């Protein structure tokens, strides 16, 4: 039981830090609350979809910004808008915030600003991916040790 308690505390501490550091917001907690016996892997599934979507959109943005003969800022903006939506839906606050800034640069047709945001969004996505994988690993360890994943409030 000691092992389970330790792991559970680790999980809660880690969750708390992710929220404190702005990686996740309340929307992520809402998604965790939706997970139950009927959809036991819901959060992991949504996260996977999000990361796939992120990669696709980041590639689209990179390609559009590379165009030497003239950047189609509308196209870049469309991808950023989609990413902003997805990150908001999953509670990926830092990614979402970069998207907000990114959209302003698209509107201003500022290529340099856009490229900086692209770099930032790539970084935030990588960070979040690692952190969520750590979080999910902790969940698996708790379950493997015979415990239950504590609910966050």
């Amino acid at each position, binding site marked *: 039981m000691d092992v389970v308690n330790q792991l559970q505390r680790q999980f809660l501490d880690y969750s708390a830090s992710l929220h404190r550091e702005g990686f996740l917001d309340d929307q992520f907690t809402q998604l965790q609350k*939706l997970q*139950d016996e009927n959809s036991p892997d819901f959060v992991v599934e949504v996260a996977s*979809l999000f990361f796939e979507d992120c990669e696709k959109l980041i590639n689209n943005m990179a390609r559009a910004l590379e165009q030497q003969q003239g950047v189609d800022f509308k196209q870049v903006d469309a991808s950023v808008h989609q990413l*902003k939506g*997805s990150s*908001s*839906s999953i509670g990926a606050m830092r990614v979402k915030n970069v998207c907000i800034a990114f959209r302003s640069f698209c509107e201003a047709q500022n290529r340099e600003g856009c490229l900086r945001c692209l770099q930032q969004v790539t970084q935030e996505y990588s960070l979040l991916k690692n952190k969520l994988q750590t979080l999910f690993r902790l969940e698996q360890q708790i379950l493997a040790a015979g415990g239950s994943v504590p609910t966050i409030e």
Partner: protein
Amino acid sequence: MVMAGESQFHVLAVDDSIIDRKIIQTLLKTLSYQVTTVDSGAKALEFLGLHQDDTTNPNTPSPPNNHQEVEVNLVITDYCMPGMTGYDLLKKIKESSLRNMPVVIMSSENVPSRITRCLEEGAEEFFLKPVRLSDLSKLRPLMLKTKLKDQNQKQEEKAAFQSPKLQQVEQKQQPSNDDKGKAIDEGLSPEKKN
């Protein structure tokens, strides 16, 4: 909570984002609704049994869910979609034989003029994304209202073709339906009282 003998409500959710489709599907299933998700307005119209040309005939009578194989009780759609927007879809539904179908719009952007335009076009509700369970619990009264309206319409149509004697017998049996409806409505009111 599904009452015995009451068929489940079926919601058609329209969103081009795969993540949002997954989330809305889970949210709606948590509320015990049957859910179908599609990724475009065009697919939504197809699922509803509407074709582009159906929507331009305002003289089409509106028998409930005549064209569909599967009955849909409510459409919830994202606003911003490539091709046909949620607003376009709303308009097409309201101009079709399914004009009584409750339609709800979701949007990640809080644009007052957009909200007004949708509500004026006949949208029952406008939710800001990310959508919460508490938003979706507003759907049941909308679907119930339409179902009861449809049931009453059917009763009236039936009665119009029956002899006075038979009508008397039918009316004796009716009260139980109405009571059921009232009980459900009252059960749903708590939120409004706040």
